[in-house]
């Protein structure tokens, strides 16, 4: 997926001169003078090669100043260019929360439609690397709460490329969440640029017995669990919402109206989260179709621990998903 993300940025920059990419270490070596072969290209390598191709005006390393970086992105976006900012990890976006909430999200509205803020903040998310409390948050639920912000959570390389191209072309501020444990997933993706529209979920496996909605990495895990369920004769329909704001409620509701059962899987604390949001939405709008209460499989209401056994307990796993499916089926 990492490569797909890089390709999307590359193609967006090719197509539109106003697209710029910056962030801490996105070049990674530029400060030394000549473009270095060893340039990092971002903490995870997603921006590798951009500096060499597009040069120092459009691809920049930055100091460690998250609020300033997003502040500049908002002002720049409102002044006619399209910044794509690498925030490294979502856990660092709280430093820029004011710029996201009070500026990026609100300018268009407060100014009666005059302002357009076409920026993208890219960031890694997720536990599982032992990065502990201050690196492993998901945080997309917070941003889904904010009117004016769009929230994208790709799961496959194909979607990552198409969604990022759509996000960069979008005239609203988009937060783009890349799960670290998906970076290594491989998939053939079309070479040419294409977009996946924001606000359209994907049914990644059709089924009739139960609907499983998984967010980000959990959509992948849900698909794996669905495979295992099939050998037990249970046909789970798996849905990857792909974007949380806007949300494609219809695809989810259509599925639940068919299966009558829903499990939502999300690697975030449960309170006021996307899992609660989806559960509430479905419980209201598919009330008569539901044969069992919606079950949520989430992380606990806790920060992310370092120790491997604790971290494993923190992250929703196949077993817990399986158990939730059993619960909704056995009612």
């Amino acid at each position, binding site marked *: 997926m990492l490569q797909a993300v890089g390709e999307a940025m590359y193609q967006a920059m090719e197509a539109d001169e106003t697209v710029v990419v910056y962030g801490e270490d996105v070049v990674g070596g530029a400060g030394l003078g000549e473009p270095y072969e060893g340039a990092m290209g971002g903490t995870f390598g997603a921006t590798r090669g951009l500096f060499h191709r597009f040069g120092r005006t459009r691809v920049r390393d930055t100091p460690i100043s998250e609020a300033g970086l997003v502040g500049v992105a908002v002002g*720049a976006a409102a002044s006619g*260019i399209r910044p794509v900012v690498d925030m490294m990890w979502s856990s660092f976006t709280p430093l820029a929360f004011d710029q996201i909430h009070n500026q990026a999200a609100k*300018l268009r509205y407060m100014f009666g439609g005059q*302002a357009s803020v076409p920026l993208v903040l890219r960031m890694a998310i997720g536990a599982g690397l032992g990065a502990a409390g201050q690196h492993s948050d998901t945080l997309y639920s917070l941003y889904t709460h904010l009117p004016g912000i*769009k929230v994208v959570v790709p799961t496959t390389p194909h979607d990552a490329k198409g969604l990022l191209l759509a996000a960069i072309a*979008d005239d609203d501020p988009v937060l783009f969440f890349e799960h670290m444990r998906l970076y290594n997933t491989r998939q053939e993706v079309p070479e040419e640029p294409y977009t996946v529209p924001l606000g359209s979920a994907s049914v990644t496996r059709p089924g009739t017995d139960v609907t499983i909605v998984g967010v980000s990495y959990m959509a992948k895990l849900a698909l794996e669990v669905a495979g295992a369920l099939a050998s037990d004769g249970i046909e789970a329909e798996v849905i990857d919402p792909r974007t949380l704001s806007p949300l*494609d409620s219809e695809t989810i509701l259509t599925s639940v109206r068919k299966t009558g059962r829903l499990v939502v899987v999300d690697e975030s604390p449960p309170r006021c989260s996307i899992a609660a949001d989806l559960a509430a939405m479905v419980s209201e709008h598919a009330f008569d179709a539901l044969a069992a209460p919606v079950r949520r499989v989430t992380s606990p209401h806790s920060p992310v621990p370092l120790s491997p056994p604790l971290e494993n307990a923190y992250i929703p796993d196949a077993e817990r998903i399986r158990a939730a499916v059993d619960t909704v089926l056995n009612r």
Partner: protein
Amino acid sequence: MNVPDRTLLEMFETMTRIRLFEERVTLEYQRGDMPGFVHTYIGAEAVAAGICAHLSDDDLIASTHRGHGHSLAKGCSIAGMLAELYGRETGLCKGRGGSMHIADFEIGMLGANAIVGGSIGLATGGAFAQQVKGTSNVSVSFFGDGGAGQGILYESMNLASIWKLPVIYVCENNGWAESTPASYSQSVEDLSRRADGFGIPGHVVDGADVFAVHKAAGEAIGRARRGDGPSFIEAKIPRISAHYVGDTQKYRDEDDLAAAKQRDPLERFGSELTAAGLLDEAAVEAIRSAIVEELDRGVAAAKADPWPAADGVTDYVYSGAYGA
């Protein structure tokens, strides 16, 4: 003074415009049918006028909760502003923003901002966009002594410095942030000193002296246009107005207020221009009455203008397409 007479008179007109606008708004606000909070720019007129005199519609400014003066100096229409203050659909922001969120992107006014320090990132970003696009436009961030308390100022100055962005940081130091005096909230006399630590030239000017402001701004803006990077201007201004309309200022020493009133920038400039033979009583009266007339018309029109329709509450949250 090598400033052309025309420019001087324009600045005087702008300053008068701001003053009369604010006086009228105070009055109308006190009448009770203007929603929200209003902070007037009285006492600071020379700063907006002296700086914006150098700017074209392609240059950018970003402003504060006390944004009427900047808006007028940048060229916002009185009618559009008044309609906005009254929350009407005809306002510059279609009534969504009000006093603390007046904006006019057509003429490079990136908005008043109710987050103290909110202008700083915006203006720095505006400057960044100019650099990327290769224009010679500049961007100005206005903020108060209180705004200098926000960390984003230092993050932004650093970025502007290393990237040589065409941005001018204008700190309007009126000695107060609401009830808190600057002498309490900072231990240095001059905030501009802080620019030095970021490799940015800092200047202190008497913000009640439009000549001084105009000169410092000319240099800073010229420098920015030439690609030589950011500047910091600290304009020491008198806080003649209260913090907001309705603020009784009981926390404030009477002497402090009296001293501020002594430094009225508009009176001072008027006397200077009169002494220089550029202005007489009749000319001042002509300027004033034209503005008063515009204000009369503006207030009447705004009050008669339609409200936004209630079902428009979710308009403009997103660009056209929210959802697939």
